[in-house]
């Protein structure tokens, strides 16, 4: 009987510690995320910088927080398996560059909006999602940042990395998967890479 009590007590203790560790990780990531947002806002508001210099600085600040490479791989889904090493590298480079350009274009529209985390979700121990509101003068935009924790830390990257962003329910990754899948039904990977390079 005493053994049973011990087991129950131990499992409660383990569950409590796991919950506590998860809460700590959430708080740490939240602090890092908000600090990064502040850093980006400071760069955006630095009037001394040219638009290009500003965007380069922002992309440099944000790159350690994003796993663009994983996004590139997941966006191709099954088609990734058929790529040669050379094409795989070329595709990742194009995808990463396209993401950075797309992000820079969106920064240009920034008009003093504020970011507020309204909900934190942790569906798995290695996944955290921040549901945020981007509040401007007129509108509020819900943006979800989805993080994962790689099993082994990637050099020059943060511990938790963003692998998808949802804007008003529209996932960047899912939309890319859909359009790439459809594109590759009738065209080749070379044509897809051509189309991506034209976007740069």
């Amino acid at each position, binding site marked *: 009987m005493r053994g049973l009590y011990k087991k129950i007590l131990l499992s409660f203790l383990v569950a409590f510690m796991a919950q506590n560790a998860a809460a700590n990780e959430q708080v740490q990531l939240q602090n890092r995320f908000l600090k990064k947002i502040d850093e980006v806002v400071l760069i955006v508001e630095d009037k001394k910088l040219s638009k290009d210099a500003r965007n380069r600085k922002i992309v440099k600040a944000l790159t350690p927080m994003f796993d663009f490479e994983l996004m590139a791989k997941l966006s191709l889904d099954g088609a990734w398996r058929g790529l040669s090493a050379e094409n795989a*590298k070329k595709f990742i480079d194009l995808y990463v560059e396209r993401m950075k350009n797309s992000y820079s274009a969106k920064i240009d529209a920034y008009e003093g909006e504020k970011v507020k985390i309204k909900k934190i979700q942790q569906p798995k121990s290695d996944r955290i999602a921040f549901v945020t509101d981007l509040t401007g003068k007129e509108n509020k935009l819900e943006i979800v940042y989805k993080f994962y924790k790689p099993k082994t830390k990637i050099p020059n990257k943060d511990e938790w990395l963003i692998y998808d962003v949802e804007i008003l*329910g529209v996932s960047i990754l899912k939309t890319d998967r859909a359009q790439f899948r459809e594109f590759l039904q009738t065209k080749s990977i070379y044509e897809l890479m051509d189309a991506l390079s034209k976007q740069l």
Partner: protein
Amino acid sequence: MLFIFVAGFTQCGANPIDRQNEDRIVFEKENDNIENEFEEFADEFESEEKTSDPFASYNRVMTRFNDGMYECVLKPVGKRYDEAVSLQVKESIRNFFNNIYFPVRFVNNLLQGKFSHTVQETQRFVINSTLGILGFFDPAKSYFKIEAHEEDFGQTLGFYGIKGGPHIVLPLLGPSNLRDTISLYPDALLSPLDYTEQSYPTLTDTWAEFIAAKSLEEINRISLDMDNYEKMKNDAVDLYPYLRDAYEQYRKKQIEE
């Protein structure tokens, strides 16, 4: 891919054939890792429903037509309108149209049992129609902090579990699906913009009045949202599936809310 970079740096002096072999081995190893990554993230895409698209050929043609109309007609008109009309006036016109669609939001919030939203929509309509001078201003939001709750009949049907059905691109209106296209009719019955004489008062009674009011509403909306469509287009490798998927995901989210 990082392995490839590292391998490239550390093997600078090696035989080129050996290096190629090593690259291949590293890539194969990397491919094993990606299999694990695909498996790990499989749950993310489980809910990724393939949109029913039996009208794909028509939809592609209509997307090209709509995009052409946007580039050749709506965008130039929108730009001229943008230059001629100040932002405050444009926002007031948008507020006015939003306010007159109150019956659509009221009924659909009610049909979904969202009673607090129904009350808030009523409060917004009363405040904006009076203090907001016929709805041209939005003191309900700016002063009383009462948020709008957009609901339409498509969302109401979705709320009761009715799926979107085949995707349909509508002329000028853009992406839609069977459920949302059919839902335009009941929503139109609740709209104060109409093209025939009705037994109840409406703001427009003839086709000419209806088209004039709708054109003003659309051009005003386009001039305020022009950048968003342009940015979406820049992210699209193939515009039709991109807009189709973005629309279906957006509607799913609206219905879930």
